[in-house]
């Protein structure tokens, strides 16, 4: 069995096993075992990747190809490079942490874990695919369970939020599909057969007119999931209503599909379209960075704060991608990983706070540090990491982005870069406001005196996320070198 397909097969087997479980205890045990197994596979994949990389310098390694639908030349074609390996590792970590955080999911546990794993299957499939059609299929598999997860296990106006999220993402998918077919029908521009294979299309010189037309469609199609301003509004409502583990997975992993897709499909396959359009989308991205940060300042719901913060931080990913610079691209991938871990951490913490106090309104919270010091300390650490403190992953990512973006002496881009850099101050404002309000200060509610202690499974989930955050921040070199080495094929197109 090849090493990549296992990432699809193991979750599917876990789902099948889950079908036979009864009750919460069995369901979570099976999910935990399955997810731990996936984490093991991911670690194995990294080791295997380094070994393979030493002897194999093609763009993708571990490639496999099966014809799936001959008439349209659709293949189940898989392969990974440094970028997808890193994102797969991120996914396994967040999924496992999500399982631990959902340890007490009392409501329909079996169905909940199944949906969660379906979602992760889609994500893994997406990251390993190098066939556009298969990729799109997995993308939809990842997005659709969100509707159920929010609609059934959510809180607040959950039907409304689930509907809004699904409709906006489906709308984007429709646009994306047009883009993908546009690419497909131009993939014979140099003669040869029509193909969905990304590596083959990358060799083809798609006519400029077609690139100009299909780049915005593909870009927007993916970028909506990456919270591109002004298409980000599904995210605050969606996150606010979603249960904790779903928010973690969604913000932590699913939103990364957006940036990844933009990079792997829109920018890689349509380089001339990218150059033609980048000035426009980079403005949107830069606005998103600052706008999201300012938006977060005024929110009072913990999840809304985090959702707007994500708009800002993922705006930075899109911004970095559109600077068309290798250092910034490296930063964009690092930022995807870093934000994935950090935002999952924040949602986990919010879940832990909400589970105890039953409120997410920051005006009703305060002084929790004294009562639940573990949550308080981790909240402060996460906040610091989020605002880009050195020693944590966020700093490394941001510095790559800023240094990279600064390599272009063009005045227009300089201004946008400075604008994006200034978000570090605004981020500090909303993070400190948040931490200062809910964790520090006097205790606002006497009822909070008897909040339950932090449990072992919560601690496990948190530590799972914290270790890579610190690891990336302290010793970033090997990871960044791994990613950097995979960026060359991309840079050729846009130079």
């Amino acid at each position: 069995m090849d090493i990549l397909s296992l990432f699809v097969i193991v979750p599917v087997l876990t789902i099948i096993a889950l079908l036979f479980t009864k009750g919460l205890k069995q369901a979570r045990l099976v999910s935990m075992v399955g997810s731990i197994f996936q984490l093991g596979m991911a670690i194995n994949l990294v080791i295997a990747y380094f070994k393979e990389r030493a002897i194999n310098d093609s763009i993708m390694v571990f490639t496999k190809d099966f014809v799936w639908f001959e008439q349209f030349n659709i293949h189940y074609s898989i392969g990974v490079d440094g970028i997808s390996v890193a994102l797969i590792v991120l996914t396994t970590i967040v999924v496992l942490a999500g399982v631990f955080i959902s340890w007490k999911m009392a409501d329909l546990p079996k169905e909940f874990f199944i949906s969660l794993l379906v979602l992760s299957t889609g994500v893994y499939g997406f990251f390993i695919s190098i066939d556009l059609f298969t990729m799109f299929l997995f993308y939809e598999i990842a997005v659709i369970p969100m509707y159920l997860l929010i609609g059934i296990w959510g809180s607040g106006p959950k039907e409304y939020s689930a509907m809004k999220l699904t409709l906006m993402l489906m709308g984007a998918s429709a646009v994306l599909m047009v883009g993908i077919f546009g690419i497909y029908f131009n993939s014979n521009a140099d003669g040869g057969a029509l193909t969905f294979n990304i590596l083959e299309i990358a060799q083809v010189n798609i006519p400029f007119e077609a690139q100009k037309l299909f780049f915005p469609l593909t870009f927007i199609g993916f970028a909506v999931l990456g919270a591109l301003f002004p298409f980000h509004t599904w995210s605050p409502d969606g996150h606010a209503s979603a249960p904790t583990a779903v928010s973690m997975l969604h913000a932590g992993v699913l939103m990364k599909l957006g940036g990844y897709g933009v990079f792997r499909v829109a920018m890689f396959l349509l380089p001339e379209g990218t150059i033609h359009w980048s000035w426009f989308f980079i403005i949107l991205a830069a606005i998103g960075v600052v706008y999201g940060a300012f938006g977060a300042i005024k929110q009072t719901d913990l999840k809304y704060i985090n959702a707007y913060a994500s708009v800002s931080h993922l705006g930075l990913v899109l911004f970095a991608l559109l600077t068309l610079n290798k250092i910034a691209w490296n930063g964009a991938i690092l930022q995807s990983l870093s934000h994935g871990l950090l935002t999952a951490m924040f949602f986990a913490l919010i879940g832990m706070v909400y589970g105890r106090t039953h409120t997410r309104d920051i005006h009703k919270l305060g002084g929790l540090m004294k009562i639940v010091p573990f949550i308080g300390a981790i909240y402060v650490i996460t906040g610091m990491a989020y605002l880009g403190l050195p020693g944590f992953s966020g700093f490394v990512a941001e510095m790559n982005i800023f240094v990279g973006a600064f390599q272009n002496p063009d005045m227009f881009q300089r201004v946008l870069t400075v604008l994006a850099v200034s978000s570090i101050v605004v981020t500090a404002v909303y993070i400190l406001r948040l931490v200062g309000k809910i964790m520090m200060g006097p205790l606002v509610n006497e009822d909070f005196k008897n909040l339950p202690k932090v449990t072992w499974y919560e601690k496990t989930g948190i530590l799972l996320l914290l270790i890579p955050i610190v690891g990336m921040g302290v010793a970033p070199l090997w990871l960044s070198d791994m990613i950097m080495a995979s960026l060359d094929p991309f840079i050729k197109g846009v130079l």
Partner: protein
Amino acid sequence: MNFTYIILIPLIPLVSFLLLGIFNKKIKPGISGYIGVAGLSTSAALSFYTAYTYFFTIGKVDGVYQTFVEKITWMNFTDTLAIDMGILIDPISVMMLVVVSTISLMVHIYSRGYMKGDDGYTRFFAFLGLFSFSMFGLVLATNLFQIYIFWELVGVSSFLLIGYYYTKSSAVAAAKKAFIVTRFADLGFLIGILIIGYYTGTYDFETLNNPEGSTILNWASSSFMGLSIITWALILIFMGGAGKSAMFPLHIWLPDAMEGPTPVSALIHAATMVVAGVYLVARLFPMYYFVEDGFALNIVAYVGAFSSLFAAIIAITQTDIKRVLAFSTMSQLGYMMLALGVSGYDGHEGVGYMASMFHLFTHAMFKALLFLGAGSVIHAVHSNYLKDMGSLRKYMPITNITFLVAALAISGVFPLSGFWSKDEILVAAFEHNKLIYFVGIFVAGLTAFYMFRLYFGIFWGKNTTYKHTPHESPISMTFPLMILAFISIFSGFIPFSELITPDKAGFEAHLNIPLAIVATIIGLIGIGLAYIFYKKENDLADRFSNAFGIFYKWTFNKFYFDEIYLFVTKKIIFNRIAGPIARFDKKVVDGTMEGIGNKTVVISKKIKGIQSGKVQDYALSFIAGAVVLALVFIYLWTN
């Protein structure tokens, strides 16, 4: 010479931080104090050993002190541009090691007494470890990015320690303020670093500072709005330095930072972290001096001079003893900045630079002493305010004597350390810029005045009756006071001009007798006035403040700078930017999306009648459609 062991100096406090931070609850408070003190003692011993080896065993080679660098790559950007981590050994970094480790060790020892019985005792020592680690990393940095990294880390340590009493709202607010104001300043610093990285292709201090290097020789090669782009970068980097060193107008966080425990104020907000800005300018001094003929350096000089005057005036009217000391710190930091700003480079020209580092050293000692003394007083009377103090000399003899020593030292009284360093600063200013000299000499008088106002107010003055009779602090607290007093008396005799100069070669320093006499007289006038006003209880001071009326009120309220900032942040950023964005997002951006959704619903409601399920309706539509199509076809056919 192998200096690799120096890596232990920062690492030991880091280990102590991790140990105390992770096993917070499991370690008994007594033990954690010992762990902290033991760690810092080791670091301090290594620092002293380094200083001795560097200055005396190795000494000058070919008449200059050597620079030793050891580093590894931490993060690669391109083949040439990378962030390194390493240690840089040169005169100023060695001196800073001594300053930081001495003060930090004294504060560790002192805190064992001062923090006794506090809930967060272990946490406190953990944070002290974190701070010491970051500060050592900062002074040893080999490049701009490394210094920035540790710069942020000292910032966060400062945040954690100011907010140490985190259940107090005022402490939380002060911690936030300190972090955000310095973060704003660091934005400038970061952009400066990005500019330097892009235009010079390196972050390395050695390459940048080389007077024959391409950066300094080619500063004119690119310009922006009439100034060299490198000058812009240096100005932006100075913005970062001004934020950390509480220069006007980024000073507003420092007085509030006094919410932290007093040993923290002594360590971070008097002796070490706040001098990071001065250190940064000194670190890049060749660039500041040579690029665009010192344009950026002039800015440093004027900002320093103004801050020093501004803060000294405010210090006179404050009634919280820690705030008096905070403004005094700001004023003295301005002194150091102005000394750097008027300095030259070669030989005796470099007196300003030398004086600045000299004053940094002596000031660290006597200001830490003042803070720790104030802490001892606060510990005894449980109040920060002058009105609750008086005649304490009767109860606290050691604190009284050591505080007096520090007050005399900062006022520049012969032959204490402050006299020597301040004299060199005034010499440098006198030789290069008369205006700045006059500011400096006036501030010297003000300093003597407000310092003795404080001294007399605490230890003499009115006969306050105390609820609990104050008593001298325990030996763990008075011991550091005595050590620091000893250093404050004698450190003026260290031959700084031999050790620390911009060209690293050293020069013969001579006491400039006329200037020294003028400075001493001004200082004595300040002390004399304070004696008249505050030695015995009288109403002279009140009559004066009433006479100055509005000016007194403005000064007492720190010229309303806090209110201005509050207006900008609350009224403009929160209410005029963040608020509208939040509303805009809800109403317009989201509203549009919702609108599309709602319109779809409306339209679907309107047309859903078509799908009525009645076969007759469908048949009718079908026939109608067929007829229309037939007509269209016939029409097309016939044409």
